Structures are given as structure tokens and as C-alpha cells.
């Protein structure tokens, strides 16, 4: 059986979901036996590859760059998974959403040279940090801040076995 081609990405989030993935500990080796990680912050591939089976995205859509990458990932991925609360709800990054973007940036950087107001050498900060499904179609949602490793493993094992992943109510808890 060919290995399942899995990718992970992170947008506006803290990387805690990726850490929770690494908290699979020894199960990571079992994962590596069944899946190939073809794109991820923890591997070295820089371009998002074609025909990926499953992509887990951590984080909300917070910058113009996330928008572009999300469109590309959606195009090249069969199953897109919103991985963790930021991707599912906006979560902590969305705390800035009621506040005008300019006010956020001035509070962080003062009044001088401010990155992010316009497209420049860094991507523009979007007016709001949004959940993935506000932008593209999402196939599965894996909530949690972060999703506990056991929840991730339950989900991934079903996926890797070619099944439609189903989670019990206690595995849908936010926070």
C-alpha cells in the first residue's frame, strides 16, 4: 500500500497544535511507517507539492500570504483539515478582530515605521483573523487548544486506514 501523502501548515497560531502532534512521541514512528510528510514546518520542503492526500492546517487566516497559500493548498489537497481551535474558530488570534487593524499595529509598533499596513516587504495583516472555512471548503474539523495527542491519533489512524474520520462528542471539545 502506498504511503498516504500528508502535509501540515501553520498560519496565525502558536504552533501548539504542531507540538501536540509531536507529542504523539513514539507513535510518530508508526505514523512515519504509514504516511509520508510531504510538506510541514518540521520538514525541509519549501514548495507545497501536488496531489497531497491530507493537509492539516493550524492557525487562522491572518495575512495576505495565508490567503494565497490556503488557495494553493486547497487546490492541491484532497482532504483539508482545520487543525485546532484557531483554524476552526479563529480562537485567540481573532481577539484582534473587533479592533481596527491600524490600531492593533500602532499599539504594537508605535508611531514610526509600521510593518503590515500595506503590502510591502512583509505581507499585509488582514483586517480580521478568520477560520479556514470562512475562506475555503474544509473537509474535517479537529478542535482543541491544542487538540490532545490522543485525539489527533484517533483522527489520523482512521484517515490513514482510509476511513472517514469520526470523532466522539468528547473529542469535539473546544478549548
Amino acid at each position, binding site marked *: 500500500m502506498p504511503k498516504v501523502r500528508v502535509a501540515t501548515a501553520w498560519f496565525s497560531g502558536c504552533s501548539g497544535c504542531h507540538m501536540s502532534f509531536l507529542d504523539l512521541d513514539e507513535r510518530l514512528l508508526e505514523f512515519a511507517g504509514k504516511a509520508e510528510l510531504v510538506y510541514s514546518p518540521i520538514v525541509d520542503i519549501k514548495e507545497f507539492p501536488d496531489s497531497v492526500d491530507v493537509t492539516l492546517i493550524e492557525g487562522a487566516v491572518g495575512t495576505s500570504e495565508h490567503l494565497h497559500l490556503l488557495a494553493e493548498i486547497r487546490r492541491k489537497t484532497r482532504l483539508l483539515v482545520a487543525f485546532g481551535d484557531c483554524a476552526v*474558530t479563529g480562537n485567540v488570534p481573532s481577539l484582534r478582530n473587533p*479592533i481596527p487593524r491600524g490600531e492593533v499595529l500602532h499599539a504594537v509598533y508605535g508611531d514610526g515605521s509600521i510593518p503590515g499596513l500595506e503590502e510591502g516587504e512583509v505581507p499585509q495583516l488582514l483586517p480580521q483573523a478568520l477560520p479556514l472555512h470562512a475562506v475555503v471548503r474544509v473537509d474535517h474539523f479537529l478542535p482543541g487548544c491544542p487538540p490532545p495527542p490522543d485525539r489527533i491519533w484517533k483522527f489520523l489512524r482512521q484517515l490513514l486506514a482510509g476511513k472517514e474520520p469520526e*470523532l466522539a462528542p468528547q473529542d469535539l471539545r473546544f*478549548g
Partner: protein
Amino acid sequence: MIALRIDDIPVQAEPGQTILDAAKAAGIRIPTLCHLPGLSPVGACRLCLVEIRNWNGKLVPACATPVQEGLDVVANSDRLRELRRTILELLFAERNHICAFCVANGHCELQDLAAELGMDHVRFPYRFPPLPLDASHAKFGIDHNRCILCGRCVRACSEVEGAMTWGFAGRGIFTLVAADLGDPWGDSKTCTGCGKCVQACPTGALFEKGRATGEQEKRPAIVAALTERRPRAQG
């Protein structure tokens, strides 16, 4: 006794009981949020909607509908599950409910219901309204971001404590729970500082000061415990 059917199970109920009471006595779970034993029912949140087969499938709130002879009630169905989930999603979309760092994380009725009803995401656009947090009270705080306007605090304050500090101000999605005439809670002339509102609140909207993330456990059962001990006029 009144005979009715809930989810095809024959159930006996006392006159004056609600469908919710009868279902609970029969061990049938109907989710609720604005309902709290000891407070008068208001049917505000609509989570406890049930379907009455012999009323042409009409939807009624179980918490506020008295039992009647021969009612054929559907308490759980795919349709109801979808409706209840939609109601929850609307609640989540309306304000800024962020479980991760909430004082009530792990002890929140809204969070529990979302998991129970299989709400894995919210299909409506979030509103992200700018809402204040008021910590001016010496003992308690209110974070309007987490308020679902269930009114349990308002009813606990008026019906149990008798202080009538809390009320609703504004209309529609702009409604806020307000102390006195919209003063900072700490300036309230009527608040007795009893804390029943905090214990009645199903989310982290009302909290005890000094509570950190996940530390605010609620004791909503004290409301019924208090009212049951009270002598009542028979009517």
C-alpha cells in the same frame, strides 16, 4: 396523572409539570441552557425545542410547555439535533466565545453542549463585536463577550435574591445585561454582592475575581437549593 409519550416511551406526569420535567423524570435527556431549576422558565434559548407529532410537528420549548393528556413528543431526532446545533452556532457566532483561556474552560454549559451536540465548527460568519469587560465590582466581574443573554442572572437576582440589580438594556443583538441603569457593576446601589448571578451563569460571562483560566467552577444548583427551602404560597 397525565399520560403522554416522549420518544415513543409512555410517560406519566403530574398536572402542571412541563414536558422537560416529565422527560427528566423518565430519564430522557433534553438539552437546556436558559432553563435553571428554581427559576421561572422563559423559553429564551430554544435549545429545548421538542416536536409534538399530534400537533402537526409543531416545535415548542419543553421547559415552558405544560404536559397534556395524549401528547406525542419527539425529544430527539435528526431534525431537532440539526435545529439545536444551529441555535448553538448562532450563539457562538454572535459574540466572542473563546474557550481556550476562559475562566470557565472545562466548566461551561455552552462548551459542554457544543461537544454533546456535535458542533465541530460554526457555519455562520462570526460577528466579532467589540464588547466590554467590567471588573469594577469588588468580588465579581462580567465579560459581555461570553454572555448568551440567557437571563439566568437577571432571574436569580430578581426572583431569588430580590435585589433586581440585573436587567436587559438595548435591543436585539445589541442587548446587554446591565446593572441598575447601566452603571459600572461596582457602582450599583442595589447589588448585595450575594453572587447568585455568578453561580447561575452557564458560561464564563460572570465570574469571581481572582479566578484564572479554567478555575471558575459554577454551582447553579444552589438556586434550586435555596428556593426549595422557602415557604411558598399554595396556588
